[in-house]
């Protein structure tokens, strides 16, 4: 997540205390940034309801909270809310939950439209470096995705340069850290289906969340696991149960009470480690092996997001990818389109003067 102070310089930090207008300006910022929609309100309340329902900490002080002293209108409202927010006991298996999420998120990816406005899902994206370079800092950025063929990824390189990787229908384009923009037309059916996968050759492919979830099929053991790192969210984990160096080793989903995936982590590791329970999922660093060599991706790589030429970042797949839902943004015309100065990818980029 992009939360460095320089990214949000008007956030209320220490130096603002000397500014008489700082509190008022902070408040204005909060007023604007706040999403007042009923959907956001309901999502927040349902998540809270689920969190409260599963909160097993017994508080005797809470029990002292006497309902009798509250106005009858509050009681009536409470009853209505209890009815509206009633969540039935979850009896489906973890696999069924995962598949249902794949279907619902897949449908949502192309149907975010209200009042004639198309909305695009926005995710905060963090990529952790390959295991052999785990001393390097993670890369953060954003992913905006409408569906499998319309998305845009931005990543901030360690030197502050921002690279972009996007797909607009059949056109895939990227801008590298030298601001050189190139595009290429995928070779028909040979183009690999875009999914959220980081290939071993350093290529990152993204797409709609539903498509990604579908990839965690019978080759993965799925379980609902205990996790307290994300309050109010339940956690599903898919652990690879078969050999397959190109496959993610594990994935975890954090799902809110409204059955929306709020956070996702995908890990790439060494050889298959067996079924669920073979390893503590929080032990992400202990047994990682260097990534094996990989054949070139069929159809040509649409963008080597982690390649050294693009950002001084070591080549290789990330060891971990974290996606956190960051709301939806209104789709602006041409949001996914290549800039006018894009060139065919066969044209070599101009010299990178910053490296000389």
């Amino acid at each position, binding site marked *: *997540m*992009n*939360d460095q*102070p*320089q*990214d*949000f*310089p*008007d*956030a*209320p*930090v*220490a130096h603002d205390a000397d500014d008489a*207008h700082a509190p008022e*300006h*902070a*408040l*204005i*910022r*909060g*007023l*604007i*940034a*706040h999403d*007042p929609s009923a959907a956001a*309100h309901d999502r*927040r*309340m349902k*998540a*809270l309801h689920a*969190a*409260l*329902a*599963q*909160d*097993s*900490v*017994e*508080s005797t*002080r*809470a*029990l002292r*909270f006497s*309902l009798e002293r509250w106005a009858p209108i*509050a*009681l009536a409202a*409470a009853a209505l*809310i*209890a009815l509206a927010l009633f969540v039935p*006991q*979850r009896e489906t298996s973890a696999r069924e939950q995962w598949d249902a999420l794949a279907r619902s998120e897949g449908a949502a990816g192309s149907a975010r439209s209200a009042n004639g406005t198309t909305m695009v899902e926005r995710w905060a994206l963090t990529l952790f470096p390959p295991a052999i370079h785990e001393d390097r800092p993670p890369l953060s950025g*954003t992913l905006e995705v409408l569906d499998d063929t319309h998305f845009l990824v931005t990543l901030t390189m360690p030197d*502050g340069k921002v690279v972009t990787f996007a797909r607009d229908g059949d056109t895939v384009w990227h801008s590298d850290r030298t601001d050189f923009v190139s595009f290429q037309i995928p070779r028909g059916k040979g183009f690999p289906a875009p999914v959220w996968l980081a290939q071993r050759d350093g290529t990152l492919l993204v797409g709609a969340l539903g498509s990604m979830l579908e990839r965690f099929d019978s080759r993965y053991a799925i379980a*609902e696991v205990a*996790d307290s790192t994300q*309050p*109010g969210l339940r956690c599903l984990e898919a652990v690879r149960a078969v050999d397959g160096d190109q496959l993610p080793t594990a994935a975890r989903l954090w799902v809110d009470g409204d059955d929306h995936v709020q956070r996702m982590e995908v890990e790439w590791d060494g050889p298959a480690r067996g079924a669920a*329970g073979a390893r503590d999922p929080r032990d992400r660093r202990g047994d990682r092996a260097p990534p094996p060599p990989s054949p070139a991706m069929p159809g040509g790589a649409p963008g080597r997001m982690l390649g050294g030429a693009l950002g001084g970042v070591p080549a290789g797949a990330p060891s971990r990818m974290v996606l*956190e*839902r960051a709301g939806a943004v209104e789709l602006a015309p041409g949001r996914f389109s290549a800039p006018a100065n894009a060139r065919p990818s066969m044209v070599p980029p101009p010299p990178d003067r910053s490296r000389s």
Partner: protein
Amino acid sequence: MPRRESGHGSGRDPSAREVFEVLVRENADRTMIYIRSITRGAAEADDVFQESMLVAFRRLGDFDRSRPFGPWVRGIAARVALARARRAAQQPIIDPSLLDAVSSQMTQWDAIDRIDFESVLQKLRACMDALTRDQQECVQLAYRQDIPMREVAAALGANEETIKKRLQRARASLAECLRAHGALA
């Protein structure tokens, strides 16, 4: 692998929880505005909101019912935000005195109900329409879409200092406009 137990916590008074949810629902918008004022980004704000409400529920017995719920829960949210900032080692850290000052600013809205508060938001929208086009673009990208400043600068073809100035002027204009409409003290 331990499985999480599903279902409701045992022994919790369901009525207390339901009434708590009523209070939160009535104050959720204003609480979120406060949290958005003191945090960076929507995801962080959502996390602070959830964590704050859980803390508030556990401490419900400490709540003085003769006083409004909003300031009490904002105090909890401020402490949660500070604790998270310290854990994340964000530098510079959020200023505690500023958190109190923002909360004091919000007391002007504590007495009005949720429906009436909608009129404040409507006035904000009207005031935003009165901003210059450049300011509107900055506000839309930086605040509504949570896009980092350097990306906003890149998107609008300006440097970061220019974007910061535009945002500062936009905030000042909005404050003046809201005051003129009686939505800000």
